[in-house]
């Protein structure tokens, strides 16, 4: 069973549907016991980091999430869910994340040339920088759907793919059993479903 963490941020209908479409049972849950019982955990999220982090920490779900990550359970953070895996964010202030991957979240405007639109919204291609099992079914250069104004900045060894938006931006990360994707696999057509499929095949 795959648990999708429901901590009151964003809508989870499409995400749940995408797992159903690849034949996976999911439970959308706000119960710590469900996270402990799950084989894999998905951490979704949209909106602002500070608000989401506050909800996640006050929900009582952050602690079991960190515990399960440390026990080696495969965890996948999506979009803001990926950003929450990091040490801290500078979105509208300075906020602590789950610190499962060392690094920080900063505005993409820090690195992209002026004149490009913010957020980056639309389909952009993946450049693999380090091997990751979540791309076992995905060719280099595949297109996925992004919507973000902030990105992860971390040591290159954690970055598994970048995307070019005037500058290379972190598209996905991995630290052992902890995975994160900045884009929306549940909105990236068959490429996205293949990435979710591959995550479901990662050995626990």
């Amino acid at each position: 069973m795959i648990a999708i963490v429901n901590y009151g941020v964003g809508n989870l209908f499409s995400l749940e549907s995408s797992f159903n479409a690849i034949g996976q049972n999911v439970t959308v849950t706000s119960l710590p016991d469900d996270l402990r019982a799950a084989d894999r955990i998905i951490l979704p999220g949209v909106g602002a980091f500070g608000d989401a982090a506050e909800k996640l920490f006050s929900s009582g779900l952050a602690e079991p999430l960190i515990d399960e990550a440390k026990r080696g359970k495969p965890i996948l953070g999506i979009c803001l869910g990926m950003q929450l895996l990091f040490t801290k964010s500078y979105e509208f202030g300075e906020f602590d994340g789950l610190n499962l991957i060392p690094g920080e979240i900063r505005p993409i405007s820090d690195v992209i040339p002026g004149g490009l639109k913010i957020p980056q919204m639309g389909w952009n291609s993946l450049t693999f920088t380090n091997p990751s099992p979540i791309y076992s079914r995905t060719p280099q250069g595949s297109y996925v759907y992004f919507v973000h104004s902030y990105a992860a900045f971390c040591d290159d060894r954690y970055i598994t793919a970048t995307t070019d938006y005037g500058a290379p931006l972190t598209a996905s990360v991995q630290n052992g059993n902890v995975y994160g994707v900045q884009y929306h696999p549940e909105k990236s057509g068959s490429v996205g479903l293949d990435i979710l499929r591959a995550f479901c095949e990662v050995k626990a």
Partner: protein
Amino acid sequence: MITKRIIPCLDVRDGRVVKGVNFQDLNDVNSPVELAKYYSDCGADELVFYDITASSDGRKIFTDILRETARNVFIPLTVGGGISSVADFGRVLSCGADKVSVNTGAIRNPGLIPEAAKLYGSQCVVISADVKRVGGEFHVFARGGRDDTGIEAVGWIRRCVDAGAGEVVLNSIDTDGVRGGFDIEMLKAVCAAVNVPVIASGGAGKIADFVRLFREVPGADAGLAASIFHFGEVRIADLKRVLRDENILVRL
């Protein structure tokens, strides 16, 4: 680098796609779910569902259809039509919409965009503007292009973006239905005024119109059309191949 998007728009009334649809390979061409799946398979980058239902019964059918579509189609879905409150945002977002476009609702209630952006994030708030030239000025029209509000359009769109809209659909009433190409002049004016994605709508009649759009208005992020796709006059796969050959970046 980010690609230009091609977006078919489906008008839905009482759970069915209106406007003639001419696809021999589809069993039920008026089924929004079937058509959405078909377009997604053909390479559409995103879909717009426009609810033109008037009755509350129809609204319920529409949300059921939306849910069924989101269960089967995994590309971004924008929903518009009859959005006049944050409750309407909640209603369609919970059924799988990724973005919600407001038009008349934003004109009637200036608080709608900031409230929705605060609650759901700017990324899902789309300002859809029906714009027409009146006496040498661009005016915003309400109620499906029927009423001239007298509001100057470019400034108004910029205010909507400042208030929290994360994307703009610019529908030129002057070129809509004429099939002579997108409204390049109007699009340039709007693209120069905002720094969020702009989707061109109204006037596409052939593949060359999309080439001209992306060549002449580099700030345009997407081209939206309805009948040329529904009638099968322009196939999305063909369109994208031509764009690629013209060195316009698309997802293929």
